[in-house]
């Protein structure tokens, strides 16, 4: 156990965590050149396409240190985007140490701070690492000063490296062995292992990722889940090498996987403690703080027959993504589906994409909303996260909405633009200070509903990529909110309703109408699109009738091709949702929230 090091790589988004993990994997010789590809641990399609890490990934590396001893490094590559900080906190709970990466050209960013605090909460030993020192714009001395003064970390500990060129990486491996502590734990105690991730495999059932705190587990053992008492016989245990590598046993301090023929998805829960049936532990390990969902949206299958498939897919996905919540929902426009809670908009997009790709579903997501506290005239309070269930305005005394404290780090020159953005979004109590000359840490209190959609994207574009953003939920505050409905040819589409601030209602209504107009294809009749509050129409627009839709010419040589084009057109229609007699494409439901500021 003395030779084990369990650690995470944490940082702001894009500071090079996954690239550094690549270098570690190569230096430890864990993967052949043929199998190697950049950002090896980002193995989901969405991660590779977007170039970001979404899920934490564990890999176990054998390392021969300068002291001549063989070490086992369990490294966890974590995501940097704010939406996935829950992934970081789960990873940290399985570690004793962390490498905090800071981009040598960008310096400390919002998630650098946020993730450092997470590491501190978990009592981890932290090694600050300045990465990307190969960049021409790198300013390692300046960044080192920031680390020392702003983060309060020891200057002597700071490591310099380039994950891209590999410079400084061997020294970093030595520092890991030297500065990070080995796990504690007693192999002779009853088994106590923490489930920190899980994945469903249709052949082998749930594959559990766990860290053994005490005791040991091996094939043939009867394990029990602490929370529900359900037992299974272990079929296989092993380590996460480049592939899963079976092992005789997992002992205290080790990280690995357990396969135990678990076909019932609900049995194994992330955060639960595993023990042995015959020799149970006295108490469970401290679980995870449940993730706090802040954005809510309903997911419906485009074709109503797919509801059952969606239900199964949701179960399997939540096993692998413990931060997602769901419960049944229904809509007059869309039929049966699920109301889901997400950690942010990117999380929502990722969930939609994973459901579509991994489970072959075609889905509609409704306009995202936050959770409102609605106080009724009889002084009771109801929580509403779905505008479709907003109570009758006559019965409402007041409404409160969640506020956040946003922390935005920017070079000084973008201050004006960022302040404007925050004011547009009803920001209050703004504050700023200069952690370093030329850099500003700007804080501001904003209604969460104003940031969920495209705040981060807008910030990125206003600051040409230099702005970073983090937030924490503050409290609930009263707001003058009204429910805005959208009507398509006179018919209210419940899935498009949203709560908006009264002052912005008209502008929002107009922009939503325009967005819908762009999304809804021309039909054979004119389509009126209206935004209404109560009985009043505040904005309207029309999709004019289709005038021409005909294949230019068709002769003998291309009958087959023309037929296939028509078949494709027919299939395309199936991907739309018919409301009244209007076909609304999937994308329209999310598009209405997008703001059109350039």
């Amino acid at each position, binding site marked *: 156990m003395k030779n084990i090091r369990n650690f995470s790589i944490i940082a702001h988004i894009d500071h090079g965590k996954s690239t550094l993990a690549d270098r570690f994997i190569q230096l430890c010789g864990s993967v052949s050149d043929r199998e190697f590809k950049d950002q090896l641990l980002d193995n989901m399609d969405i991660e590779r396409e977007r170039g970001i890490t979404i899920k934490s990934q564990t890999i176990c590396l054998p390392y021969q240190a300068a002291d001549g001893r063989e070490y086992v490094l369990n490294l966890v590559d974590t995501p940097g985007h704010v939406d996935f900080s829950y992934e970081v906190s789960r990873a940290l709970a399985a570690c004793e140490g962390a490498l905090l990466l800071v981009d040598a050209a960008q310096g400390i960013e919002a998630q650098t701070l946020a993730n450092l605090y997470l590491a501190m909460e978990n009592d981890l030993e932290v090694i600050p690492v300045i990465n990307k020192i190969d960049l021409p714009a790198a300013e390692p001395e300046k960044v080192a000063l920031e680390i020392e003064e702003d983060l309060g970390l020891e200057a002597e500990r700071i490591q310099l490296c380039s994950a891209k060129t590999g410079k400084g990486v061997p020294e970093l491996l030595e520092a890991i062995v030297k500065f990070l502590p080995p796990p504690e734990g007693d192999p002779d105690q009853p088994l106590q292992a923490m489930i920190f991730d899980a994945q469903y495999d249709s052949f082998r059932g749930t594959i559990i990722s766990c860290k053994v705190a005490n005791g040991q587990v091996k094939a043939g053992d009867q394990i029990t889940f602490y929370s529900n008492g359900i037992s299974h016989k272990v079929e296989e245990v092993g380590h996460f090498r480049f592939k899963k590598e079976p092992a005789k046993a997992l002992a205290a301090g080790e990280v690995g996987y357990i396969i135990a023929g678990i076909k019932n998805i609900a049995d194994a829960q992330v955060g639960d403690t595993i023990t042995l049936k015959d020799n149970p532990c006295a108490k469970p390990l401290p679980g995870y703080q449940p993730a706090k969902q802040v954005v809510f949206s309903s997911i419906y299958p485009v074709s109503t027959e797919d509801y059952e498939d969606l239900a199964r897919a949701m179960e399997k996905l939540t096993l692998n993504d413990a931060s997602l919540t769901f419960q049944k929902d229904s809509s007059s426009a869309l039929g049966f589906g699920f109301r889901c809670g997400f950690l942010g908009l990117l999380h929502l997009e990722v969930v939609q994409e994973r459901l579509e790709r991994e489970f072959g579903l075609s889905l509609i997501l409704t306009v995202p909303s936050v959770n409102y506290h609605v106080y009724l005239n009889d002084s009771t309070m109801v929580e509403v996260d779905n505008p479709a269930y907003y109570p009758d305005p006559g019965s409402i005394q007041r409404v409160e909405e969640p506020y956040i404290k946003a922390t935005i780090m920017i070079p000084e020159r973008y201050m004006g633009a960022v302040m404007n953005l925050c004011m547009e979004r009803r920001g209050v109590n703004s504050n700023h200070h200069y952690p370093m000359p030329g850099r500003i840490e700007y804080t501001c209190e904003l209604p969460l509903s104003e940031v969920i959609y495209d705040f981060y994207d807008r910030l990125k574009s206003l600051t040409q990529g230099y702005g970073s953003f983090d937030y924490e939920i503050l409290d609930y505050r009263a707001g003058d909110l009204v429910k805005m409905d959208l009507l398509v040819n006179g018919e209210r589409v419940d899935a498009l309703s949203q709560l908006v601030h009264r002052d912005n209602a008209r502008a929002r209504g107009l922009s939503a109408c325009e967005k819908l107009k762009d999304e809804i294809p021309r039909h*054979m009749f004119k389509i009126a699109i209206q935004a209404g509050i109560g009985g009043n129409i505040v904005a309207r627009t029309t999709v004019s009738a289709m005038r021409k839709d*005909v*294949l*230019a010419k068709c002769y*003998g*040589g291309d009958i087959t091709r023309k037929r296939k084009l*028509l078949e494709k*057109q027919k299939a395309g229609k199936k991907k739309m949702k018919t409301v009244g007699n209007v076909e609304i494409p999937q994308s329209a439901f999310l598009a209405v929230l997008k703001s059109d500021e350039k």
Partner: protein
Amino acid sequence: MEQNIGPVAGPAGLYVHIPFCLGKCSYCAFVSWPCRRPPAGYPAALLSQARQLAALPWSRQRCFTTIFIGGGTPTMYPAAVLNELLAELRQLFAISPAAEISLEANPDTLRPELLAELRRGGFNRISLGVQSFTDELLQKIGRRHDAVGARQAVAWARQAGFANLNLDLIYGLPGQSRRQWAADLAVALELAPEHLAIYQLTPEEETPLGRAVAAGELVLPDQDLCAEFEQDARRSLLTAGYEHYEVANYCRPGYACRHNLNYWHNGSYLGLGAAAVSCLAGLRLMNVASPGRYRRLLAAGRAPYAEAEALGLAASFRETVIMGLRLRRGLRLAELEQRFALTPRHYYGTILDELIAQGLLVMDHERIALSERGFALANQVLHRLV
């Protein structure tokens, strides 16, 4: 014996594809290769395939009532080659004496002598790819002739004795105005062709024009403007006495293109040449697209097919319906029932009622057809029936 069975089993068409042009138009997605001179060995390959097909009992039971030599640009070849090809086909197949024998031609390859010779060789219908009479637009889409050349070609064709002449016109060209289109229509009418094929430019993905449109470098007239173009054409041609007999085709009474009518009736035909399609006995066969491979396969005595498709009865019925609805008069119900033992009423059920209620489709005891409105919105009907 089978050998002696004469043509008994209904009419059929014969298509010959010449996949060569002097250059490549920027919107062209047809199977056609640009070259200075077309390969000398290609006509021989056409004849080898003709012999293969002529040997089928199916072919020997057919009387061919139309021949169409299209492309590409068939007139890349000298008249003698084309006449010889025609003569050989007459030897191999039973060609009806009154057959419509069409030739497609591009103005960039025409001379008066060539046209006269072709007429003497037996071609009795000519189809000219003029596309537009506005030089600026012709250049934009990479055509290799101008308005003067187009008029000249028509005059020469008339002098040569072609009494059945088609002009192809395109609208929806980049930057085209209604005024320009009206002028094109006026010139076309002045030339008094028996037949006009008028269609909207389609920006096909794999063409330079399609890519420029997709990249936003080129803007085509929008749907509303194209609807105006279409109406302008319809109005002036109907006034001038033409019939709008198919979605994209107009003719003087009695001059509908019989060869193409056979396609819209989903009839039988043989296709010779690279990428040509044959449809016989419920089977559709497509030849390989590369002229080189086509020649090599035939030289080796092999069949030149790349793909085959055999549709089931219901699929064939649907296809026949969507093809037939392109015709102004639509389909005869009795004929459909006789061919497929299916009727639209039973087969499509309520979809049919919806389309009729929407005013896109009309049906009486005898026929089913698109309404006038349905003609412009044909895909909205056809994709529901496909």
